[in-house]
């Protein structure tokens, strides 16, 4: 297997250089497997995405089934795209490029297999639990604790395989792509672990250890950096390998790549609070988030410019080579999204854009454009190489390129329009000083045609994807898979006077790099989060804010289960337009018992912070059974099963005990008496409904949800 040619030459008196040619094989099987999973889950994720998009136009597509309602399958779409499509895509890209820049096979074939199958099992468990309503409600971290532990374990397997490969490399230097991969591994591990801290109630139910403001800060520190270190750094790493390969020329500036690597990972970690502007988060944390978000444009554009300038003098190739076309649009989309990000973090723009479809458009320019197109470019480049053949059809790839590009435009433009229009409608007052659109629903029905247009964009994009699947399948069919690719590398080893290989010095480097990345990304987290945890004592406590009753607690869990937070916020910003519409603005002291926080990030429906007491019980009963009966034109799904399903109270006391251990002041007496207290409150609601001629049993789920909704935001009114 290993052929050695020794050419020793005297360097200095006591030093020798040994030159050997080693033959070995690259593992293409893992790359193919991850690649295949990327394509399969890309199809699934996009189909679910198109379904949720259409549900907003045709609510009948919720099918009146719990498992297919928007609130439950929107997280399925985001998880499928982020962790299944993009996740498998980055693993395929990393496994291919890492072996080549390190000139070695992956560290361990067994770890590669465990990583692959473990990750697919995690995806499978997500696909089962999310439609069942088993969720933590925290965005892009919805999976419950046993799955979280599995993710952590498999991530460590990936990490060992990654670092192990870098350590046993034959190339003395670590190419910049690998730096990005190391930062990805380290940071995602930290983010995932800290954001997932939860106290289990049962096998598939837990409560976040953080509450309210702290939970929100940790969640968006995670959420924003999931974008940074799952959707960005691995892609930049892949860009630094695949773009030079596709264009057959080295990267424009290696120095720039180092500079933007360190600045990017340093700055990104601070930017999370821009997701919480005008919220109850302390002002200084918000300002910090804004400043660092604006600064982020520099390293982001550094990466984009480095990519695009690599093609200088070779733009003629772009018109002929479809992989380069995809790459150029991908980098352009990255540039657009990273220009828009800082803009959106400016308070004045955020005031209009936040909670609207503008953010949805922003995210999709990144996901469809940057992530999607780069994965397509890599797929078109990689599949022919893995199968030792040429691409089946260049013209079909071109068709895909245009369908995809038009798809992105048809998706993004209506969503920008919808976001801008709705954001302004929410803020508009008549000359008399009252809200011009006091009925929230009116602002929704006005954007529905734009939702329809967006679905057309999504359909174009999906159609292009299907064309690619056909093209790649045909390519694979005409070639033969190269499971183990034979190659060789020249290895120079300097032997010093002690007889030690200086190669060892470099062996330490990946660890050094890992530790440096860890320190750099930790600074932001430490400066932001530690003081915020201290704020606990500084949150102005509101005496009238009390823990939820047992029934309300169960109702809140149903709110989480049905994913209500996907469309309804619980955060009234301190604007006149919001306080006029919803009531007093939200204060941090109101959330101290909220494990997890439920502020939401998108208002497809109105804010529910002060929903309590706004309508009678009967209104909620009819509205949940059939939303259009109370709000004609509403696109909210019907929740008729809540009327039928018996409320599961087997864990109520366990839930209160967990809450107590997290600092919620439930007394032991109250916990012991929980079932009686729950029954009493349920009976009172049932009696109230009966007076309105509604017959419903007190032990049904709808009673708990009504109890929770009627409690929302009422505590401060008692003051």
């Amino acid at each position, binding site marked *: 297997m290993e052929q050695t040619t020794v050419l020793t030459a005297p360097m200095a008196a006591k030093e020798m250089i040994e030159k050997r040619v080693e033959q070995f094989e690259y593992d293409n099987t893992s790359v193919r497997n991850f690649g295949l999973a990327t394509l399969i889950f890309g199809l699934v994720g996009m189909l679910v995405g198109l379904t949720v998009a259409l549900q907003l136009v045709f609510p009948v597509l919720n099918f009146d089934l719990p498992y297919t309602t928007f609130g439950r399958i929107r997280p399925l779409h985001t998880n499928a795209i982020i962790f299944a499509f993009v996740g498998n895509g980055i693993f395929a890209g990393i496994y291919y490029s890492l072996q*080549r820049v390190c000139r070695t096979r992956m560290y361990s074939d067994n770890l590669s297999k465990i990583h692959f199958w473990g990750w697919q099992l995690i995806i499978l468990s997500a696909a089962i639990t999310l439609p069942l309503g088993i969720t933590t409600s925290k965005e892009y971290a919805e999976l419950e604790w046993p799955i979280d532990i599995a993710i952590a374990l498999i991530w460590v397997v990936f990490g060992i395989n990654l670092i192990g490969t870098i350590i046993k490399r034959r190339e003395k*230097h670590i190419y910049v*792509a690998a730096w990005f991969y190391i930062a990805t591994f380290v940071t995602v591990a930290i983010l995932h672990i800290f954001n997932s801290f939860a106290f289990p109630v049962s096998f598939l139910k837990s409560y976040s250890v953080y509450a309210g403001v702290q939970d929100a800060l940790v969640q968006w520190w995670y959420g924003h950096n999931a974008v940074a270190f799952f959707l960005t750094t691995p892609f930049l790493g892949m860009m630094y390998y695949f773009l030079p390969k596709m264009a057959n020329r*080295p990267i424009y500036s290696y120095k720039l790549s*180092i500079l933007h690597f360190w600045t990017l990972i340093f700055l990104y970690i601070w930017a999370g609070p821009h997701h919480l502007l005008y919220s109850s988060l*302390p002002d*200084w944390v918000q300002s*910090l988030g804004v400043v660092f978000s604006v600064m982020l444009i520099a390293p982001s554009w550094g990466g984009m410019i480095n990519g695009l300038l690599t093609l200088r003098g070779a733009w003629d190739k772009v018109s002929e080579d479809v992989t380069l076309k995809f790459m150029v649009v991908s980098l352009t989309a990255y540039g657009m999204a990273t220009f828009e990000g800082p803009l959106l973090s400016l308070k004045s723009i955020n005031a209009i854009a936040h909670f609207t479809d503008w953010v949805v458009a922003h995210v999709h320019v990144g996901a469809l454009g940057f992530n999607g197109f780069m994965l397509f470019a890599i797929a078109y480049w990689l599949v022919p190489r893995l199968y030792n053949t040429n691409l089946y059809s260049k013209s079909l790839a071109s068709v895909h390129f245009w369908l995809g590009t038009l798809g992105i435009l048809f998706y993004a433009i209506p969503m920008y329009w919808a976001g801008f229009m709705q954001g302004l409608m929410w803020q508009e007052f008549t000359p008399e000083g009252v809200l011009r659109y006091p009925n929230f629903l009116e602002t929704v029905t006005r954007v529905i045609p734009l939702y329809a247009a967006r679905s057309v964009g999504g359909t174009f994009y999906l159609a292009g994807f299907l064309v690619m699947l056909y093209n790649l399948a045909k390519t694979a069919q005409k070639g033969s898979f190269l499971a183990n690719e034979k190659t060789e590398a*020249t290895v120079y080893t300097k032997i010093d006077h002690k007889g030690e290989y200086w190669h060892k010095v470099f062996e330490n480097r990946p660890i050094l790099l890992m530790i440096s990345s860890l320190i750099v990304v930790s600074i932001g987290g430490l400066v932001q989060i530690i003081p915020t945890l201290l704020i606990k004592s500084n949150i102005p406590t509101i005496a009238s804010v009390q823990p939820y009753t047992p029934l309300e607690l169960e109702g809140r869990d149903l709110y989480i289960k049905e994913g209500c937070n996907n469309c309804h916020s619980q955060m009234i910003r*301190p604007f006149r337009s919001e306080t006029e519409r919803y009531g007093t603005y939200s204060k941090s002291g109101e959330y101290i018992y909220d494990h997890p926080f439920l502020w939401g990030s998108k208002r497809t429906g109105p804010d529910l912070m002060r929903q309590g007491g706004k309508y009678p019980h009967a209104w909620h009963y009819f509205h949940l059974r059939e939303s259009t009966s109370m709000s004609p034109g509403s696109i909210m799904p019907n929740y008729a099963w809540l009327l039928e399903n018996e409320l599961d109270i087997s864990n109520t006391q366990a839930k209160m005990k967990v809450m107590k251990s997290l600092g919620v002041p439930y007394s032991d007496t109250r916990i012991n008496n929980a079932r009686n207290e729950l029954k009493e409150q349920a009976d009172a609601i049932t009696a109230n409904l009966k007076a309105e001629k509604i017959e419903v049993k007190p032990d049904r789920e709808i009673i708990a949800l009504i109890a929770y909704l009627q409690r929302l935001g009422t505590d401060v009114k008692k003051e």
Partner: protein
Amino acid sequence: MFKQHLAGVTGFDAYLILSLLIFLLFFIGIAVRLFFFDKKEIEYLKNIPLDKNFDN
């Protein structure tokens, strides 16, 4: 905004200044390091994905 907090939470300006200062020092450190980077090494590093280093 939220004067109610800020009244109770003082001394956090320092965090803002400190954060920016840490970044500035960090940035200068990398810039200086890059300035003194060996050109030959940069050329070598650039070409790692292209296998040119191993054509000999």
